[in-house]
Structure formats: C-alpha cells, structure tokens
C-alpha cells in the first residue's frame, strides 16, 4: 500500500501553483507555454489520483483527452510564436504594448 490520495493532491496543488506563477511571472511566451503545460499536467495528476480513489475510469479518460488538448494548444501556441518571430517582433508577453490603451 503506497501513499494515499492526499499526497498526490498535495503534489498536484503545488505543481498547479508553480505553473500559475510561471504563467503570471515569466515574459518569454515559450516559457509561459511550458508553464501552461505544467498547469494542465497538475490537473491530470489530480484527475488520475481521484480516478484511483473512486475506482472508475472517467478520470483517466479525462486525463487522456486533456493530453490531446494540451498538445493542440502547444501546436497553436508554437505556431503563433514562430509567426511572431518571423515578423521580427519582440518575444515578450509584457512588451506587447501596441495593444495597451
């Protein structure tokens, strides 16, 4: 018998906060994307541990679907970053000042 669900959840919550901090604090869109991945993964960890807790598969299925969604977000996000770089714009989330009013 290993650690119970509470421990998993604590790790998930910590990971979620780390991801949140990364999204809010970092300026490089690439690292922001990576931090978003961490947020989604922490949710996956929570889903899977709850799935184990309740003994039904819904959580695992959800986690798989989330994985696919996360991959999709990465594709679009990276596409955008490449397009921004191609236009020789500054890659800095905070410096998108053209749109501040």
């Amino acid at each position, binding site marked *: 018998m290993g650690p119970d669900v*509470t421990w998993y959840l604590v790790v998930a919550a910590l990971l979620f906060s780390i991801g949140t901090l990364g999204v*809010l604090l970092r300026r490089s869109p690439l*690292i922001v994307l990576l931090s978003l991945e961490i947020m989604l993964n922490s949710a996956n960890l929570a889903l899977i541990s709850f799935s184990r807790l309740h003994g039904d598969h819904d959580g695992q299925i959800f986690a798989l679907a989330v994985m696919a969604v996360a991959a999709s977000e990465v594709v679009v996000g990276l596409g955008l970053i490449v397009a921004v770089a191609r236009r020789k714009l500054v890659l800095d989330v905070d410096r998108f000042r053209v749109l501040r009013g």
Partner: protein
Amino acid sequence: MGNVLVWAIWIGAAAACLGSGIAVVSFANPFFSALALIGNLASLAVLFLLASAEFVAAAQVLVYAGAVMVMFLFVIAYLGGRADTPFEGGPSWVSFGAVLAATALLVEIVVAIGLKAGDLLADEAEVGAAFGSPAEIGRFFLTDHLLAFEITSIVLLIAAVGGVILGTKTRAEEQLDRLDKAAP
C-alpha cells in the same frame, strides 16, 4: 517491504516532479526549461503508474515527453537566441499580484484537501488488475465517452490546421518583407 519501496519511488518521483516544475519556470533559457519539463513529465508518468494508470502513463511518455517536447525543442532551436528573455527584473505590482494569486490558489486547494483528508480520501476503492489497462480505456472511449473521443480528434485537427496556417509565410508578409528590404 513492498510498501517501503513504493513509498521510496513515490517520494523520489514527487520530488523530481516538483523540482523540475520549479526549474521550468525559473530557468532563463527556454531550452533548459523545456528539458526540465521533459523530466517533469517523466516523473509524472511514474506517479501515474503508481496510481494504477498504466495506459495514461504510457501515453504521457509517448505523446507528451516524446512528440510534444520534440516539437518544443525544435521551435526553440529554430528561434535560437531570440527565445531568451531575462527573468522578470525587480519586484513589480504584477509579480506581487501573481505571487499573491498563486499562493491564494495553493492555500485554497490545500485547505480543501486538508479538510477532506480525514474522511473520504482515505478509503480507496478496490480495483482489479485490469484497471487502467489499454483495453479498459479503449472500451470506455468507444462507449460511454464516445463524444469526448470524437471531440479530441476534432480539436487535434483544428490545431493541425492552425499550425499549418500560422507556420506558412503569407503573401502579405512577403510583401512587407520586400518593403523592408527596399527601405534603407
């Protein structure tokens, strides 16, 4: 004795997971961040395995750590030095607010978990050996969660189209480039 081993692996994986998570958000160079995320994903996969989610763990390694991260690294390599941006310099209102928000989230969730820990979270359901196996997951995807399965494919398709659209240089952009070149 098996318990101690499980605990040891679990603690190792959790520590690796959190450590690499912190590394991802604090490295200045996105290349190292991405590498740290691979470690994060791998250690998460171990945790998934320990929570009897074999198939998800396998998918995590194959899809995520494999395919997605390769894409990441490729883009970072393509961008080269431009991808580097310094860490947020000096405390600002934004960073203060961010830390506050993240802490609030953490406290909220941990308190929620803590309040819960006594009763419900303790008694785990008994699961058979087939729990989390590819066959089981597959069956659910084709019956109860058919819609989710289908939507996942649509989302991926949209993302693929988006990747192609955003990745190709358009005529309007070429025109702009020509204008840039023409200008001294």
